[in-house]
């Protein structure tokens, strides 16, 4: 069951449709059961710091300005100005137009710079435009590219078109890491989530990512569980470790810890690192900081003790 990069439509289709099905009730029950794990004291402290290190601190608004992006970069480097033991986040995630500003603000920090490209969030643009978008972002200093797949093409069964697009974008990325956004909220079924995950991995994704954050349903635990199973099985078959990034809707420390438990009990250690797992989030960081302070001081500080950006 190997699929070559030049796989034809029928090969891909038979491979993707030959993957084991996902039982909706079962996968949701499993995710819900894992969500009842009780993570306290030292385990919680460890989880919070790990989660901070996994955050792709994101701003993807029409209203983004250089000032806003610079402020976010400062926060990414030093999330808690009052506590130097607080680790930096994994990356900043911005639109391509903001990449030069972010690149300057992050220089020398070790914080990665991710940019959404390929006509984010809809993906409804000609391939040439998507590739140009990608090349520009990389040229301006992005070392991670978050691309969207053409859900329309995927749902129409044009798997090889989606596949070829990912291959082309991967090539345009050069040395930059490629995260492939499946937009699971538009795929409709867990079976499709599993198929899209495999499609992206076979086409060369370094990461598979749930969502743009711009549709009604973004990251959920069961969807992430299905994607984690996919990267686990992919490594077993192809030996390559692919990262996973849930994005959108993860707002609290409690949420984040549930994702870490999910990793811990499905794919294990190898994914408990920012190189293999990221949270696409904006407001999550402040809750993590608040809980972190609570653990060290024993009391909750008010929201004004944490910076806004």
């Amino acid at each position: 069951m190997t699929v070559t990069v030049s796989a034809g439509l029928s090969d891909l289709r038979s491979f993707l449709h030959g993957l084991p099905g996902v039982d909706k009730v079962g996968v949701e029950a499993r995710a819900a059961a894992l969500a009842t794990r009780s993570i306290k004291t030292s385990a919680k402290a460890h989880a919070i710091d790990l989660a901070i290190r996994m955050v792709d601190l994101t701003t993807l608004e029409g209203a983004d300005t250089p000032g806003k992006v610079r402020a976010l970069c400062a926060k990414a480097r030093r999330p808690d100005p009052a506590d130097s033991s607080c680790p930096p986040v994994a990356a900043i995630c911005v639109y391509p137009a903001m990449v030069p500003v972010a690149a300057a603000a992050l220089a020398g920090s070790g914080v990665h710079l991710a940019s959404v490209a390929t006509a984010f969030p809809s993906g409804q643009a000609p391939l040439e435009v998507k590739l140009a978008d990608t090349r520009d972002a990389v040229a301006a200093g992005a070392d991670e590219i978050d691309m969207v797949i053409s859900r329309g093409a995927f749902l129409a069964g044009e798997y090889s078109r989606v596949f070829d697009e990912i291959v082309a974008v991967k090539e345009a990325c050069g040395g930059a890491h490629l995260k492939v956004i499946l937009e699971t909220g538009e795929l409709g079924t867990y079976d499709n989530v599993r198929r899209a995950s495999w499609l992206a991995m076979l086409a060369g994704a370094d990461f598979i990512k749930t969502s743009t954050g711009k549709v009604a349903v973004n990251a959920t635990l069961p969807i992430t569980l299905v994607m984690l199973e996919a990267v686990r099985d992919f490594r077993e078959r192809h030996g390559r470790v692919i990262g996973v990034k849930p994005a959108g809707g993860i707002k609290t420390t409690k949420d984040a810890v549930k994702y870490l438990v999910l990793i811990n009990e499905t794919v294990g250690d190898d994914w408990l690192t920012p190189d293999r797992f990221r949270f696409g989030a904006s407001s999550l960081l402040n809750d993590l900081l608040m809980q972190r302070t609570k653990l060290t001081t024993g009391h909750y500080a008010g929201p004004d003790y944490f910076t806004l950006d």
Partner: protein
Amino acid sequence: MFEYAPAPESRSVVDIASSYGLFIDGSFDGGKDGDVFKTINPATEEVLAEVATAGPEDVDRAVAAARRAFGSWSALPGAERAKYLFRIARIIQERSRELAVLESLDNGKPIRDSRDVDLPLVAAHFFYYAGWADKLAYAGFGPDPRPLGVAAQVIPWNFPLLMLAWKVAPALATGNTVVLKPAETTPLSALFFADVCRQAELPPGVVNIVTGAGDTGAYLVAHPDVDKVAFTGSTEVGREIARTVSGTGKRLTLELGGKAANIVFDDAPIDQAVEGIVNGIFFNQGHVCCAGSRLLVQESLFEPLIDSLKRRMATLRVGDPLDKNTDIGAINSAAQLARIRELSEIGASEGAERWSPECPLPDRGFWFAPTIFTGVTQAHRIAREEIFGPVLSVLTFRTPDEAVAKANNTPYGLSAGVWTEKGSRILAVADRLRAGVVWANTFNKFDPASPFGGYKESGYGREGGRHGLEAYLA
């Protein structure tokens, strides 16, 4: 590795008395001849309490109290009986944290199960049958179904409070009164329930609880003034009870052992099937009469499935039942542990291949690592006898016909599971399985509205649902 820090539920949420009497006619008293037995925490072997042993005179008193209460209780309008049942259900919900901790202490099951499975189901059963109490005339048993009288109920130790609920709720809803004997190793939640009955101001004598070992139960079911016997437990004891009761005119329902086949076809949703296999055999330490203790895997799927299963089993957390992250708790008793060990050793000596994940077990208490046997055939004892522990026998099959034939080739017939993404296959296979419950793409799911019971040596009669009313109505 992401290690979870201990997350113990507080045991101080529940008060355990140093000694307990019998609950007869609305109040507690010591047994007539002062005999007691000790109930222990199987996770630590620490004594939790001393409990009175009910002798023949005590059982006589309990049955007499139930008989006295029967007249007025059965004469109450159904809607009035429903009020008591609703009240009991609500009190159970309110006190569910206490009860969950108590159940985990006395039984050894993980607090996650007692909290998330046992207690919600217990309350749901009382709510469900409370709803039937004033609708019996429309249940399909004639226009004016009558209660039987005094029900003698003997329950097992694997789900102490849940089995009590399965027995007591339909009996009371239909206007019967009960004398219930909980298992010797797990009497505490039933005695707590007695207190719930008092709190609900249930009339004295409607529910009586007599504690003790097999002798107490034998005397109770043989009692001449009992109209109905309901038993859940081993097939061996069930057979004895059937012998005792036969020819007496007493009504009898038996819910006995099982050796359920969990059938996995090669088009199954594999990750969820693995969860279902784990849940089927390791839930409640495998102390489940309907456990999926025989895994039948289509041969073409055997290797990947077993690899996935082993990988999953390596993440099971065995240990302190009160830790909120524990998946598998303690074996209920030394005797049960000895039986599990004996059958496992027989499995190995008969040539099956034994495997357990690396799994540190506590020094004190009764523990058994989750275990699977591969290379098992129909001829192995571990494929035929109920182990009632966290031990799975794995067999293979080639075609649906062979799967069905093997699944049915057992003296039992309590439950079965079918895993396939093909809907037509689910229906076709389920239709041919001789088992009281067939789960499709899930396992060990319970609901008060769903009837439960066995074929063949798994017993007769149904508990739960509308069907469960029939056992208590004439």
